[in-house]
């Protein structure tokens, strides 16, 4: 199968900082690949390299077989890009914005109107053609941005945190559109800070320090935590947290509202008498336990475990 995106060993350095340090990523038709990671991990720079907005220091990007550096126009014609700070013309109407992006993208004049109207229907903006872009809500601006990125019918779509600052109802709408595009064979690369979005991707790359440290299906990333996450409801919570942190099998304690999430060390599982030991220690410390049970690990648990692992390795490397 032809890959829509083949990115091999991408490198980009800003001064002394290796912003992107050997990233490789392939996207097949109908596949959604997510980039997750802490701020400053290199997600946005990676995307900007893939679309040719930044020049590569090393590596190679091919979009639908076209090299981004040598065949820039052909590569760009095959991709749609929705950057984090998407620029619309505030003074132009919704329709005029879309027509503008269409003409820039070389959509034939005769097809432009029909295509613009179909896309406005697709993203749910029919009826708002005459509204000025600056008078749109945040969610509607994102949908117009998506329509603009799709106007030249690209087989590959790159979305950089497309739903940042957008409410849950609108995020649902947005993702229904993305899933429909995937069903039609579009390939998607998306970065997001929302784990409930990341889990919808076929594959995820966890980025840290300019590199993809781990990649796989969301379930593969969560699998190492199976049986290792416990939920504790107890009062007083601060004492409970301190008691759990002192247990040799507990590697992380996170407050999650009224509850605590405990992560056990690799190799330790609930069956090893950890819960009995914790209950006894909590009781001795005068903590009242209302609940202590294993729970299914979430992608957020996996994210935090991966990040802490990466930070510890970095500390160790620094000596």
């Amino acid at each position: 199968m032809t890959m829509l995106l083949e990115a091999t060993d991408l490198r980009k350095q800003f001064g002394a900082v290796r912003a992107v340090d050997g990233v490789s990523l392939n996207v097949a038709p109908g596949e959604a690949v997510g980039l997750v990671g802490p701020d400053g991990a290199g997600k946005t720079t990676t995307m900007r390299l893939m679309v040719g907005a930044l020049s590569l220091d090393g590596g190679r990007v091919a979009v639908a077989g076209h090299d981004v550096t040598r065949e820039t126009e052909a590569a760009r014609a095959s991709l749609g890009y929705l950057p984090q700070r998407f620029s619309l013309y505030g003074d132009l109407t919704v329709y005029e914005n879309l027509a503008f992006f269409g003409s820039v993208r070389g959509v034939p004049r005769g097809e432009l109107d029909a295509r613009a109207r179909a896309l406005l229907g697709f993203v749910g903006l029919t009826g708002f053609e005459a509204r000025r872009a600056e008078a749109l809500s945040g969610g509607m601006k994102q949908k117009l941005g998506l329509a603009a990125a799709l106007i030249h019918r690209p087989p590959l779509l790159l979305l950089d945190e497309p739903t940042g600052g957008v409410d849950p109802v609108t995020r649902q709408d947005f993702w229904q559109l993305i899933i429909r595009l995937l069903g039609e064979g579009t390939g998607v690369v998306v970065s997001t800070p929302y784990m409930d979005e990341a889990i919808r991707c076929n594959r995820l790359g966890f980025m840290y320090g300019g590199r993809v440290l781990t990649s796989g299906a969301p379930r593969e990333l969560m699998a190492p935590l199976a049986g290792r996450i416990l939920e504790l409801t107890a009062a007083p919570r601060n004492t409970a947290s301190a008691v759990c942190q002192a247990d040799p099998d507990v590697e992380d304690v996170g407050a999650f509202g009224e509850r605590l999430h405990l992560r056990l060390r690799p190799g330790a599982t609930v069956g090893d008498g950890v819960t009995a030991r914790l209950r006894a220690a909590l009781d001795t410390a005068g903590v009242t336990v209302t609940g202590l049970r294993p729970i299914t690990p979430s992608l957020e648990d996996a994210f935090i475990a991966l990040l802490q692992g990466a930070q510890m390795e970095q500390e160790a490397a620094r000596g």
Partner: protein
Amino acid sequence: MAEPVVQVEGLTKKFGDFTAVDHLSFEVQRGEVLGYLGPNGSGKTTTIRMLLGLLRPTSGRATVLGYDIARETEAIRPLIGYMCQKAALYDELTVAENLAFYAGLYHLPRGELKSRQRAVLELVGLSNRPNERAGELSTGWRQRLALAVALVHRPELLFLDEPTSGVDPAARRVFWGLIDGLAQSGVTVFVSTHYMDEAEYCGRLGIMNGGRLLALDTLAALKRDALPGPAWDVIVEPLIPALAALEQTPGVVQAGLRGDHLHALTLAGAHDAVSLRAALADRGFTAAGELADPTLEDVFMVLAGNKVESLSAGAQT
């Protein structure tokens, strides 16, 4: 009971024909963390701007720490801290200089500056970086500096307007740990957010839509009172056609995407796992449905969901 920290009665703000905030009434007690949720353009930021004394209400009244927001703005300002999504940090100034600047703005006595800088930097974990320029901090660290800036003059009440927007899960968890500590020390926190999971950290939650406060209660009470019946996780493929089928199933009040599966609310007594599976099988889908813990997102969608699209269409954010 002590006097509420915030007391709002019939607060209304109109911009031309558009009613951004429509007869709000509520109270916030000392040491409370009040979450304020709603879609884009539902009036959250406008409410906060009125309580800060930056916008004059069209009608109604409110007091903050006992002072009237329309007439006694000057008395309120030194007692409150404010932090928003796009924190007003000076990129060219260092971490310590940003703090000194805001301390001056809030008339913190000069003799206290050093000790307050030390205290807030330690609180947010920036103690060893006082001389870094704000412009060089990553998003997560900027949020923390913005919080330090909002705290430097020792406010009794903190307004946070979507403070964690675009921040990764690990940094958000740290941030909420800080908020929790502040609340335990007696600071009152009024926070708006888009992240439903962050509601877990709030004592009570207000849900805004179309400028109106639809509900204000604890998470447990909202789940008990606002939902029509049980919640379900439905494992099925392919998602989009199955979602359409689920939405049309009798007894299903609402359905949506939830990560890599579907999630639905049904009327009380309408379904069990067997009947839900059978209903989808009738429409050609092999599905497994299991009872799920209802979430705040369920509450939000029930209260706000249906009208949201028309709302966001009319809103000017």
